[in-house]
């Protein structure tokens, strides 16, 4: 990941943000990310992000759960240790539906949450370099990544022209590290290595 240089603009209304995102992309700037206090429908499309495949992961975890339950119970009650419960067959599939269902849900839920945390790099004691603390309150923060071709002054005035307030140039670490929010621990020197 490493430290990169960004032009950062703030927006206070999603009605302004949407056209700004489109204009910025059309002008050829590389939008690193837009940080918002709540999910905004359609913003992912506007930024050109592809759909998430978290659903597929959930489905795969789910059928793993079903297979685990049915497979294990079948083995335990028909192969490993057969017990005659009231003369019923050893392979009593209808009676296993509740547990098979519960394990489907359990595996799917746990698997999806862990996948989500992995993909978004979320965990206790994970620290990241935030662009603007107000982005979890009422501010939509757009960060444009500077490349060797970016004319900073031009980019700043462009962002201002599409409605951004308080536009600044910032060097930000884009990765994560193990750290605490009550201490200023940035393990990397904040020196921008400008990407090409």
């Amino acid at each position, binding site marked *: 990941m490493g430290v990169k240089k960004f032009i950062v603009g703030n927006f206070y209304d999603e009605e302004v943000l949407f056209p700004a995102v489109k204009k910025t992309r059309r002008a050829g700037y590389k939008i690193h990310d837009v940080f918002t206090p709540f999910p905004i429908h359609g*913003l992912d499309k506007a930024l050109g992000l592809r759909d998430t495949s978290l659903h597929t992961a959930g489905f795969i975890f789910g059928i793993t759960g079903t297979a685990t339950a049915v497979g294990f119970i079948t083995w335990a009650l028909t192969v490993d240790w057969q017990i005659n419960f009231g003369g019923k067959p050893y392979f009593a599939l209808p009676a296993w539906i509740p547990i098979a269902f519960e394990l489907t849900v359990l595996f799917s839920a746990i698997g*999806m949450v862990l996948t989500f945390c992995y993909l978004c790099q*979320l965990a206790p004691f994970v620290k990241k370099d935030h662009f603007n603390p107000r982005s979890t309150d009422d501010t939509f923060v757009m960060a444009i990544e500077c490349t060797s071709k970016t004319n900073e002054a031009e980019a700043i005035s462009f962002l201002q022209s599409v409605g951004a307030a308080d536009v600044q140039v910032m060097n930000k670490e884009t990765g994560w590290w193990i750290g605490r929010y009550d201490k200023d621990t940035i393990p990397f020197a904040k020196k921008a290595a400008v990407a090409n």
Partner: protein
Amino acid sequence: MSLLRYESQVRPPLVDGNKDYHQVTEDICRPVEANPSKLWWIGFLISVALLIFGIISVVMEVTYGVGQWNLNKTIGWGWDITNFVWWVGIGHAGTLISAILLLFRQGWRTGVNRAAEAMTIFAVMCAGQFPIWHMGRVWDAFFVMPYPNTRGPLWVNFNSPLLWDVFAISTYFTVSLLFWYSGLIPDLATLRDRAKAKWRKFFYGVASFGWTGSTKHWQRHEALSLVLAGLSTPLVLSVHTIVSFDFATSVIPGWHTTIFPPYFVAGAIFSGFAMVQTLLLVTRKVLALEDYITIEHIEVMNKVIILTGSIVGIAYLTELFIAWYSASPYENFAFMENRVNVMSPYGWSYFIMMFCNVLAPQVFWSKKLRRNLTVTFFMSILVNVGMWFERFVIIVTSIYRDYLPSSWSTYYTPTIWEVGFYVGTFGLFFTCYFLFSKFFPVIAIAEIKHILKRSGDNYKEKMEGIEAEPTLQFAEEQLHGHH
């Protein structure tokens, strides 16, 4: 998308007052950031005292055995399993609000879902205590898990409803916890970024997992919430269905009923919503959140209460009819003699149940009473009393007179330690709820902001002009506006 999400002017606003995004943050974070009030301390200390009483009761039971309870030869399940089913039932409203109403796109859920989900988790924690401590030799409780053991390995009975319960309740608890916490992460990040005190920065920094609010992360978060809601919806129905199987798959007259699963699920939602009302009426007042948990929210939940209460009422009558129609003398005896006969030893409990669950909620046909906070609060307590008696009636009146009349004489009343255990779970529940309301935002901040421009009071007015436009023109603009 915008067109689909457009909400008619006819609907009353879900957020009152002239709010913007920052004001929403301020309002909901204020109780978390301020020092706890005197009222909070009083409530919290009472809860802790009740919890200590509960712990003492459990210690007595574990030290001297289940004999400390008044369970006897025919009544093997008394207060403990009554309380278990009661608490599990209460736990159902949270998931109903957070999952089923999310799938049905009910915007009003955003004001109440966070607190209701928390309530679910605490209620399931309380419920779990009862079967565990009822085991008696609680140090062997892990026997219920299928693990390789030195007894063969002899596996647990996967065909038994009691084992299904183990899986259902533990899955329900885990999934509710994950659903609740994944929703909390963005709001904890809001608290982290506002924090001034060192311990707050540390605590909310750890708890918010390094959330940034990146668009991609929100996209995944939305997908996660939706799929978890989709999973929780059948889950919540399955949990109380399986709890009802504990009874329905037996051959005890009064329990051996095919109507139990839907009847239990309706009853669970009924009592759960009543508990949500009790908690939220107090929470909105004490934390000054009347703009977010509005009278509209209260009214719509009262509608759910009268609906589910009436379903439960129909189930009671169906049970009676089927008992008569079955022409089975045992079924008939269990219903007509042990329950409906008011002169029978437990007849009184049947009529308390009927009054609280079926008759009393009918007051909510009146709009005026649905919107009356005092009536709502009183009714919410009454419904939960009624639902406790429903489980008591099902359990005790079905088993206190078994097939051997010589064992009929014993009248079951709980001992102080049975009562203490029940009271102790109230302590556990409210201790957790007080801590939750102090350290976590009781309303989902991000979700309120998400609906603010569609359902906020001040934005409703702005929509009036747009509403006057011809539909087609509006649709065109909305479709081509954003994307």
